[in-house]
């Protein structure tokens, strides 16, 4: 197994507050890793650091052996890292179809794209994606009119459209109904194996559905790592995390 992502001693400090402190993480090919931790544990910040949204104070991030520590967001994205945000981010005034089209990023430069007419290339690809996330009957609807769950799927679909080798999902089921969550876990299980994923999630039942290995963060550092049962039986985790918020 080759490591897709490797974080070494990643630290992010704001003046006197250290959000992420010497965090190490290694994710292997085809793995679905869940990132757990109480609020303020540094999960989202870690994703920010991986994707270049925030700059590291110290430490390094490697993607398939390449150092991406100092790259900009778009460079990292072009290295094959896709990210879904905690608050779903889609292009609200564009139709669902156009959202997928924008996410289909074969050409990224403005001038190259001036020669590309819409829907010329992405067609086949989004048929595949629609198979996975659904929304096939909502293609012409402006994304701003979608329900919350649909917006989440759209964003997941967009990230897939981008065809990344590593997907980062920040709370993909936040605000979803039970049925929607069930559909989402189906989507994730379908992706598992063919894609490498890191999922930040609070919903333990969802985590149980999908996770291979779980990494627990606390106070910006690694607390524990292991399979679902190992984590559930880890006394330290129980103490800081399960005790405080409770895993349902």
């Amino acid at each position, binding site marked *: 197994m080759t490591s897709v992502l490797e974080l070494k001693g990643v630290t992010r400090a704001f003046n006197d507050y250290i959000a992420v402190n010497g965090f190490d993480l290694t994710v292997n090919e085809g793995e679905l890793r869940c990132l757990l931790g109480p609020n303020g544990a540094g999960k989202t910040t870690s994703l920010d650091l991986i994707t270049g949204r925030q700059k590291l104070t110290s430490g390094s991030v490697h993607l398939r052996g390449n150092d991406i520590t100092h790259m900009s967001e778009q460079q990292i994205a072009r290295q094959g890292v896709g990210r879904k945000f*905690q608050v779903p*981010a889609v292009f609200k005034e564009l139709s669902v179809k156009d959202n997928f089209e924008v996410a289909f990023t074969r050409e990224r430069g403005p001038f190259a794209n001036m020669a590309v007419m819409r829907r010329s290339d992405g067609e086949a690809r989004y048929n595949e994606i629609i198979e996975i996330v659904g929304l096939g009957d909502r293609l012409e609807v402006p994304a701003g009119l979608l329900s919350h769950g649909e917006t989440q799927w759209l964003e997941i679909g967009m990230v897939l459209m981008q065809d990344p080798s590593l997907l980062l999902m*920040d709370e993909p089921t936040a605000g979803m109904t039970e049925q929607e969550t069930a559909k989402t876990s189906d989507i994730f299980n379908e992706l598992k194996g063919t894609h490498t994923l890191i999922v930040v999630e609070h919903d333990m039942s969802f985590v149980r559905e999908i996770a291979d290995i779980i990494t627990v963060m606390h106070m910006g550092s690694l607390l524990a790592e292991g399979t679902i049962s190992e984590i559930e039986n880890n006394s330290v985790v129980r103490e800081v995390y399960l005790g405080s918020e409770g895993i349902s």
Partner: protein
Amino acid sequence: MSVHDFWTPFSLLPFLNALIIGISLASIWLIAALGLAIIYGTMGVINMAHGELIMLGAYTTYVFQSLVGVPFLICLPLAFFVVAAIGWVIERGVIRTLYTRPLDTLLATWGLSLILIQSVRLIFGGEPQYVGVPSWLNFQIDASFVHLSGLRLFIVLMAIILVTLTWYILYRTTLGIRVRAVMQDKEMAASFGIDANRVYSLTFAYGAGLAGAAGAMFGALKTLFPDMGSAYVVEAFLVVVVGGIGLIGSVFSSALLGELNSVFSYFTNDTFARFVLFTLVVVFLRFRPQGIISEGMGRR
């Protein structure tokens, strides 16, 4: 290049006086910008009609002084309250519906400024009017390199008073605490029972009132005509944008810009000074965009 035939040579005492004049200019910029800074800082509203609120303050003073016969010092608070009332109405009528659309506020307030200019022109005519300077301000300070007219000194003092007053209201009264709470987190403030809409109305009215008081003073200093406000609005924006959110920022940036303007004017001329200043501000914003990046870190 023969643009500036007279590049004034450096000479210490007049240059020092130029620095003093810089303080005087800075106080004018600060007074012009203060209301804008409060409104922008609290509500994130770019009020393009701010210059016109200044103009209304000047005309209010003119009306009370010339037509009613109220002494100048009393006109200042009157201008404050009259324009504050107008500001309150504007907030209720136009701004309120646009809080989620900052760009549209900018445009709507610009439309408003047209209406205000034209209304004043219809009422008072286009002729320049003037506000009489009270005789007790007709003195000059003449001490070695310091030359400052009484009116300028008065404006510097008023700037200090207004800033202090604003500081006091913001940091020492419950209203101020509410304003700052809303500034930082509207939802959180609401959960503590603070009526954000009311706070916005009051803040806008207060900012407008400050513009009115500024107008009263500018009326004494300069000439009143319906589109006098446009002369202040760009400068006021620059003070606010360069200063960032907060009272201290505005004080510093107006001091900086006022001094720069005075020094450039000393060496070259006022038009060129403006060009240099505006360009510097644009470049400055490029390299110190703190508080300027609209995509906040905490959004997602």
